[in-house]
Structures are given as structure tokens and as C-alpha cells.
């Protein structure tokens, strides 16, 4: 009687440990070794009861005393279900609005994102990332890569684009793997989109520009060109302040000029770097749209735009002798000359940017990943040491406080 039940239990039990990495149709860019969470799971963590930590934090906040970063990191470490993710979000908000907000540790932020992805709360992770001012979530490159790869696997390019814009706002394009992943997401989204609002164009421009400055190959240079073209378009349509306000961009006018300087640099440099025809076409289209006379039907919109920028930019443009608007015909001339020069030198790449990026990723991503994984392991060690140091310090402080209390009690008893 028991045997068939036991057999069926075995059959059911065998189905459970399927690795969740190879579900049908989901392919991320990063290798399985990168996304693997075994090293992170194997870290030493203190097992604390979440309810105890929560009551401790509530009591400390009531008494208006500062909460230590260890407490919040223990809380985030011990999350074990989806509801607890919401509780942790609340306590992260409270920590950010407490005196110790500067001391939110890297490992807490990393653990928070990992836990969110583990318990399927990726929208929560994205929400806290977008509202980083309120939650204090500033992940490092490894965590950003994990998050982006998760969204790429799910084919959720909209959310992956939001992540890329956040990386751009934090100017965290240092590591090559992040740059490559962001290029992939950006070109994928650009290929699909036809018309964008000016804020999206500005964000696209900046996110193409910043990693493009770091990559010294055709993809990088074409991205710089594309970024400068988009930013120049926003500059001339909405004013310079619209470009640099709340963005990691410089307030000097002349983004189209810088685009043309990139072309000149490529034309005059001796190595074999090429510019993509797609990016050149975008710059061409931008220049033509801006020099074309504005049609009568849509006169209201540009008038509104001009009023808002007229009074504001008047102050900044007083010193400038020629406005960008007047330089547009010159830019068009220069562009035509440089374009013909580049074609004559054979420096125009005809493949699309997305194919070029995919090629580059295939070549360079494995090496970048290996470096990243080594750096991550070192960082795990460092975090462990720091955590041990902090726990030690906490113990010592507790001992000292207890001794003082005892001394005071003894003094009071003897007095």
C-alpha cells in the first residue's frame, strides 16, 4: 500500500530540482557563471528573526536614536518571502530618512536587488531604483549587470531601458561589461521606436554618449555621434537648459558641433576605425529637420517652445555672438563635406549598429565577464571582512555600555 505512494512521491520529488536557468526561449547575454547565485547564497550571514529586527528598528526610531547599518543589512539578508520584500522596502525608506543614511552599505544594496530578483519582485527593485532619492539604492556595476540581464532574459526591454537610464544618471559606465549590455539594450530599443518625446531623446542621447566615450572602437564612436546628434536636436528645439538640467551633461552649447568634430577625428585618424552609416543617417536627418522651414500648421507648438526657452536662454545667449540656429547651414555644409570624405576613405560601416554590437559582445563579453567575476569574489571577501569588523565594534560598544551602566548602578547603590 505504501509502496505506490512512495513511488509517486519519488516521481513528484524528482521534478522539483530543475535548474531555473534554462527555461524555454529565455536567453540572456551574460553567461550562467555570471548570473549564478551560489557564491552569494554561500556567504556567511547571521540568521536573525525578522520580527525581532523590525521591533528593534521601530523602537529605535521612536526614541529618535540612529539605527545602525548592520541592522538594516541583517534585515535584508534574512528576507525569505515576497511580503518580507515589502517590509524591507519600508525599512529601507526609513533608514534613508534617518541620521545614518550615508552609511547604507554596498552589500545591503546588492543583497536587496538579489533578493528582489529571487522572489520575483523585479518591479519593486525597479521602483526603488528609479526612486533612488527616497530609498538610497545605488547599485554597483555587477548588480546593474545582473538586473539588466534579468530583464533582457524576460524580453522586457522597456524595463531594461529604465535601468540603462538610471546607470546614465549615476554615471556608472566604468566597466566594459556594463557598457556592452547597455549598448545592446539601447540599440534594440532604438530599432523599434520611431518617434519619441524630447525627454526620451535626451535620455537616449546621454546614455549613448557616456559609454561611447569609453569604448575606443567603431561602436563607441558611432554611439558618440548618435548621442551628440540627438542631444543637438533637443538643444536646438528645447534650449540648452533642457539638455543639461538634472543630467550628467555639460552646459556648453554646440552639441552638433561636437558631433561634427567626432567625424573629423575619424576622418583624420590613421587607424581603421569606422563610423556606422546608421548614425551618420541620423545626424543627416536631424540637420535637415532643423534647417527645414517650420510648417504653418504646427506653428503653435514651436512658438510655445520658443517662449519658454526665449526668456530663459536670453540671459545665457547674451554673450554668445552667433546662436546655434544661425550656425545650422554651416553645420550642414561641414557634414556634407565630411560625409563625402569618409566615404572616399572607406570609413563608413554599412552594417546596422545592432549587428555590430552583437558582434562586439560575442568577442569581448567573455573576457569582461571573467574580470568581473574575479572582482566580485574579491568584493565578497572585502564585504565579509567589513561586516565582521562592524559586528566586533558593535559587540565592544555593547560591552562598554553595559559596564558603564553597571558602574553607574553600583555608584547609585553605594551613594
Amino acid at each position, binding site marked *: 500500500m505504501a509502496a505506490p505512494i512512495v513511488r509517486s512521491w519519488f516521481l513528484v520529488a524528482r521534478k522539483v530540482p530543475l535548474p531555473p536557468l534554462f527555461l524555454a526561449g529565455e536567453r540572456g547575454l551574460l553567461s550562467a557563471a555570471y548570473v549564478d547565485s551560489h557564491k552569494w547564497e554561500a556567504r556567511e550571514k547571521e540568521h536573525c528573526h525578522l520580527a525581532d529586527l523590525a521591533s528593534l528598528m521601530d523602537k529605535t526610531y521612536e526614541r529618535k536614536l540612529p539605527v545602525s547599518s548592520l541592522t538594516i543589512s541583517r534585515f535584508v539578508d534574512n528576507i525569505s518571502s515576497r511580503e518580507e520584500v515589502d517590509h524591507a522596502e519600508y525599512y529601507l525608506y526609513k533608514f534613508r530618512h534617518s541620521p545614518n*543614511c550615508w552609511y547604507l552599505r554596498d552589500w545591503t544594496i546588492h543583497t536587496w536587488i538579489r533578493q528582489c530578483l529571487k522572489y520575483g519582485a523585479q518591479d519593486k527593485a525597479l521602483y526603488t531604483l528609479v526612486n533612488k532619492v527616497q530609498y538610497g539604492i545605488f547599485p554597483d556595476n555587477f548588480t546593474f549587470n545582473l538586473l539588466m540581464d534579468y530583464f533582457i532574459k524576460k524580453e522586457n526591454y522597456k524595463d531594461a531601458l529604465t535601468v540603462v537610464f538610471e546607470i546614465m544618471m549615476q554615471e556608472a559606465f566604468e566597466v566594459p561589461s556594463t557598457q556592452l549590455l547597455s549598448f545592446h539594450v539601447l540599440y534594440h530599443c532604438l530599432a523599434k521606436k520611431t518617434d519619441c518625446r524630447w525627454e526620451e531623446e535626451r535620455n537616449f542621447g546621454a546614455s549613448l554618449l557616456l559609454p561611447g566615450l569609453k569604448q575606443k572602437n567603431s561602436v563607441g564612436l558611432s554611439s558618440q555621434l548618435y548621442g551628440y546628434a540627438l542631444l543637438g536636436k533637443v538643444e536646438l528645439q528645447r534650449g540648452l537648459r533642457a539638455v543639461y*538640467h538634472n543630467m550628467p551633461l555639460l552646459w556648453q552649447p554646440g552639441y552638433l558641433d561636437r558631433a561634427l568634430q567626432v567625424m573629423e577625428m575619424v576622418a583624420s585618424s590613421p587607424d581603421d576605425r569606422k563610423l556606422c552609416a546608421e548614425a551618420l543617417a541620423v545626424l543627416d536627418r536631424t540637420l535637415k529637420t532643423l534647417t527645414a522651414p517650420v510648417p504653418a500648421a504646427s506653428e503653435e507648438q514651436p512658438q510655445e517652445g520658443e517662449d519658454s526657452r526665449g526668456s530663459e536662454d536670453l540671459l545665457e545667449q547674451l554673450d554668445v555672438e552667433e546662436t546655434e540656429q544661425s550656425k545650422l547651414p554651416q553645420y550642414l555644409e561641414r557634414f556634407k563635406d565630411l560625409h563625402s570624405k569618409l566615404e572616399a576613405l572607406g570609413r563608413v560601416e554599412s552594417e546596422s549598429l545592432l549587428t555590430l554590437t552583437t558582434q562586439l559582445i560575442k568577442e569581448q563579453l567573455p573576457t569582461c565577464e571573467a574580470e568581473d567575476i574575479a572582482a566580485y569574489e574579491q568584493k565578497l571577501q572585502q564585504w565579509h571582512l567589513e561586516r565582521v569588523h562592524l559586528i566586533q565594534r558593535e559587540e565592544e560598544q555593547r560591552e562598554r555600555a553595559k559596564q558603564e551602566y553597571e558602574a553607574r548602578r553600583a555608584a547609585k547603590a553605594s551613594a
Partner: protein
Amino acid sequence: MARRKLRPRLIAELARRVRALREQRNRPRDSQRYALDYETLTRPYSGRRLPVRAWADARRESSLMQLLSRLPLFGLGRLVTRKSWLWQHDEPCYWRLTRVRPDYTAQNLEHGKAWGVLTFKGRTESEAREVGQVMYHDWRLVPKHEEAAFTAFTPAPPEDAPRCVPYPPLLRAMILAERQKKGDACTEEPMLSLERTRVRPWDYPAKREAEKQAKTTPV
């Protein structure tokens, strides 16, 4: 007439200390003092309106902590400039931040204090000090990829003009006569120095008073 010794008024003393403690505990935080109503451009705490020349800037630019709340570690080690410096001087003027303490009672963490090393018109100071006028809507963050270009500064070559010049003949005679009267046996030619006294520009950030008071030694 001998005065009677004053009775020590203990309760008054206690009350004074309690009042001081309560004032310290309930002091208005930066977020309350420097909150700004952007429609009428008044500070709700004091009810005062911003000066006229600041109205355009308050609408367009951001205050320092508004920029830093969006950065990891509140922008430690980043460069920040002021728009007024950008418009006034050609040479690079910026603060490199070394320490930031945001005001945690603010909703968006957009008030607080910051400390850093000042570089004004290309000359860097040696020590960090508190950044002044943090609540002014005048600040801009220098992007990381532009930092090198922004801080590049070649000081002007020192002038070859003469440093000392002999006095005009009448004044020279007067000086020599004075010397003879005093009995000064110096035979050195009296020279007029042409060195310029270094006058600081009017918008050089002054030292904050709180730091000055803190440094006085107790007697």
C-alpha cells in the same frame, strides 16, 4: 553701604538650562529653514521673499543638496561649481567634496551641509572647509567625463615688468634729507615697490563663522 550677597537662584538657573536644552532639541532643521515655495518664492519659515536677482535662478537651477541627493554616497569626491562663478570668471572655480551631511528630516534629502576643498580661479586651497551658500539655487554638477577638461588650467606667465623703480627726484631728495635728519647712515638708493597687493575677488567664498567659533580655545 555694603551690598548683601546675592542669593543663588537655583530654580531660575535650572529653568535657564531646561530652556536651552529645549531650544537645542527643537531647533529648526535645515529642511524647515530653507524650504522654498516655488510659486511665490518665499521661505515659509521666515515668511521672507527671495531677493529679486535670485528669482530667475531659483526657478532654473538647483541647490547643492538637490544635486547630491541623486548621487551615490551623496557625491563624495565630485566637483561642483556655481553658475555665478561660471558667468563671472573664465578660470575654473569649483569645490571638490570631502564630506556631506544631509538633513534626514527633509522629504527628498535636499538640504544639508557639505565640506570640501575649494579651487577658485585655478588656485587650490590646502585644507577642506565648509561649503558656503549651499541653499542657494546656483549649483551645477560637473560630469565625470568633463572633469579633466574643466579643471585644466594654465596660470598666466609672471609679468616681466620691473618690480622696483627709483623714486622721482623731489621725493628722493626728501627721503635723503629725512635720513640725514635722523642720523641714518644708510647709503642705499630708496626704491619704490610696484608689486600689486593681491585683492581677493568679491565673490570669494568666506569662511563660515561656526567653524571660527569652534576653533577658539577655552580659557
